[in-house]
């Protein structure tokens, strides 16, 4: 075997080995995913938090505070705020959901059932069909609220397991540069500058996107809370826990197109179940208020704070939200769009890098060394 064939053979072997390792890696990831799902979700949340909090830490560091102390201060403030809000909101929410479940099983649904039965009897002359429809509706309503109650109870245990997230977040912020250097040091010279450039660009855009979305959600949450508070003042408090519902609307706003509708549902449901004397007008005001908040968000807030690089088609949003829900439930639905945004930005940057960097001319060197071995043995 001459040197040329030998080099070619060893190159082929190396490539096959790499392909084998990649396939093995993918297979392992698929097999281990169900077991590693929870840890993966924790890491994703911690990473998103680290991206969100890094600018604050950087700011404190620029004021001559040591990075470790800066992270601790920021995290203690954030954790205190979160713990305070949750201690105020969660027990009340669980109580409300349980009370609503009981209420649904009794008077409100019965009243509605009578009305629906009367409607079907009058229009279709079929009382049995009407009874079937109302029974089904009752069943759906109760199971929906039961699952809602379960969700909030799960949030409690979820939060308990979330003790670990701040720890991961701390180290992700503190040692992010070290991690990046360690990863980039493994990249071959040929792709080094390209990878470093893409990594920084993706990091920059993703950071801006996540920070923008959070500010946007916060503003929508505050505006919705103020709106619900004003409705409460005007119509003798038909919506309890308006602060929680307002903030939930802000959180739901993270999911484009779907979020604003989802955000309005809890307020409408609670108002219906409370059945105030002027229910129709209250419902109209709730809808008008949410439309107004969306108009302010779309016209003033969003264009200023949310990066346009992650714009997605409505169909894409719906598909990824469904997939996210299938994989990781409510949390999956919430993070599906930001994660898809991150993938989109990464792909955009990789395409940009591959167009801009002359990788072909580097690989030409390899060809030269393989095709022209010393002493002209190949010839």
């Amino acid at each position, binding site marked *: 075997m001459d040197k040329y064939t030998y080099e070619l053979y060893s190159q082929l072997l190396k490539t096959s080995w790499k392909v084998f390792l990649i396939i093995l890696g993918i297979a392992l990831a698929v097999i281990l995913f169900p077991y590693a799902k929870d840890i993966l979700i924790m890491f994703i949340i911690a990473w998103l938090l680290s991206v969100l909090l890094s600018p604050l830490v*950087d700011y404190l*560091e*620029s004021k001559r505070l040591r*990075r470790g102390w800066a992270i601790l201060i920021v995290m203690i403030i954030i954790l205190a705020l979160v713990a305070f809000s949750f201690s105020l909101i969660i027990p009340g929410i669980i109580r409300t959901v349980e009370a609503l479940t009981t209420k649904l099983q009794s008077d409100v649904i019965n009243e509605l059932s009578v009305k629906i039965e009367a409607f079907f009897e009058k229009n279709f002359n079929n009382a049995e069909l009407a009874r079937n429809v109302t029974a089904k509706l009752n069943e759906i309503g109760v199971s929906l609220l039961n699952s809602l109650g379960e969700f909030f109870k799960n949030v409690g245990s979820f939060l308990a397991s979330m003790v670990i997230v701040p720890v991961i977040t701390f180290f992700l912020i503190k040692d992010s*540069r070290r991690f990046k*250097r360690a990863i*980039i*040091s493994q990249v071959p*010279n040929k792709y*080094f*500058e390209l990878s*470093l*450039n893409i990594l*920084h660009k993706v990091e*920059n855009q993703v950071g801006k996107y996540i920070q923008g979305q959070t500010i946007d959600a916060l503003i929508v949450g505050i505006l919705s809370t103020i709106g619900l508070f004003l409705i409460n003042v005007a119509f003798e408090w038909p919506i309890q826990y308006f602060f929680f519902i307002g903030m939930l609307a802000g959180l739901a706003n993270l999911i484009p197109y779907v979020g604003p509708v989802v955000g309005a549902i809890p307020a409408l449901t609670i108002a219906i179940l409370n059945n105030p004397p002027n229910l129709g007008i209250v419902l109209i005001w709730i809808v008008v208020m949410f439309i107004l908040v969306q108009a302010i968000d779309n016209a003033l807030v969003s264009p200023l704070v949310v990066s346009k690089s992650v714009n997605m088609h409505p169909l894409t949003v719906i598909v990824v939200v469904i997939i996210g829900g299938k994989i990781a439930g409510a949390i999956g639905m919430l993070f599906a769009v930001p994660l898809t945004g991150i993938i989109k930005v990464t792909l955009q940057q990789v395409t940009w890098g591959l167009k*801009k*960097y*002359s990788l072909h*001319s*580097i690989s030409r*060197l390899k060809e030269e*060394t393989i095709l022209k071995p010393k002493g002209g043995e190949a010839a």
Partner: protein
Amino acid sequence: MENPIWGNSIFRKKKKEDDILTLLKQVPIFSDLNPRELSEVEKIVHRRTYKKKEPIIKMGDPGLGMYIIVKGSVEISTEEGKDEKNVLAQLTEGSFFGDLALLDESPRSASATALEDCSVIGFFRPDFLDLLNRKPKLGIKVLFALAKTIGERLRRTDELLMQTQEKKSKIHHG
């Protein structure tokens, strides 16, 4: 060869870091920094090794930052045609190149290729911007030194241009 059990890897690492700091101190843009500031810079630089004839940067690629040669030598050249190149300089240990890329992403004006197996330190724009954001005082020191280096280079270019123009006018008149 050092005994792996009794050899003190901690001090050896310290020695290596000291070497890097000394080398960084020789680079004009870091020459005004104190040891503590230099070790901050040391935390964000990337160390790379290149084999003989391996390209370090390619002409036309987006500029990302500068390289300082720790060991070996590097050839700076421009590509004239498909297979033609014009060698501009050969740099050795302690020399640096690509510093203009610390300011913007303009395409590289020349290629750099390792003439022998060599080791370099890379200092890149995104890390520099991050340093400016986190440690403004240190960042401004580096930025000011970079401006001085570029200013010095511009002055030299002006002088050369004037000399060339003088020669040209002498030829025209004489």
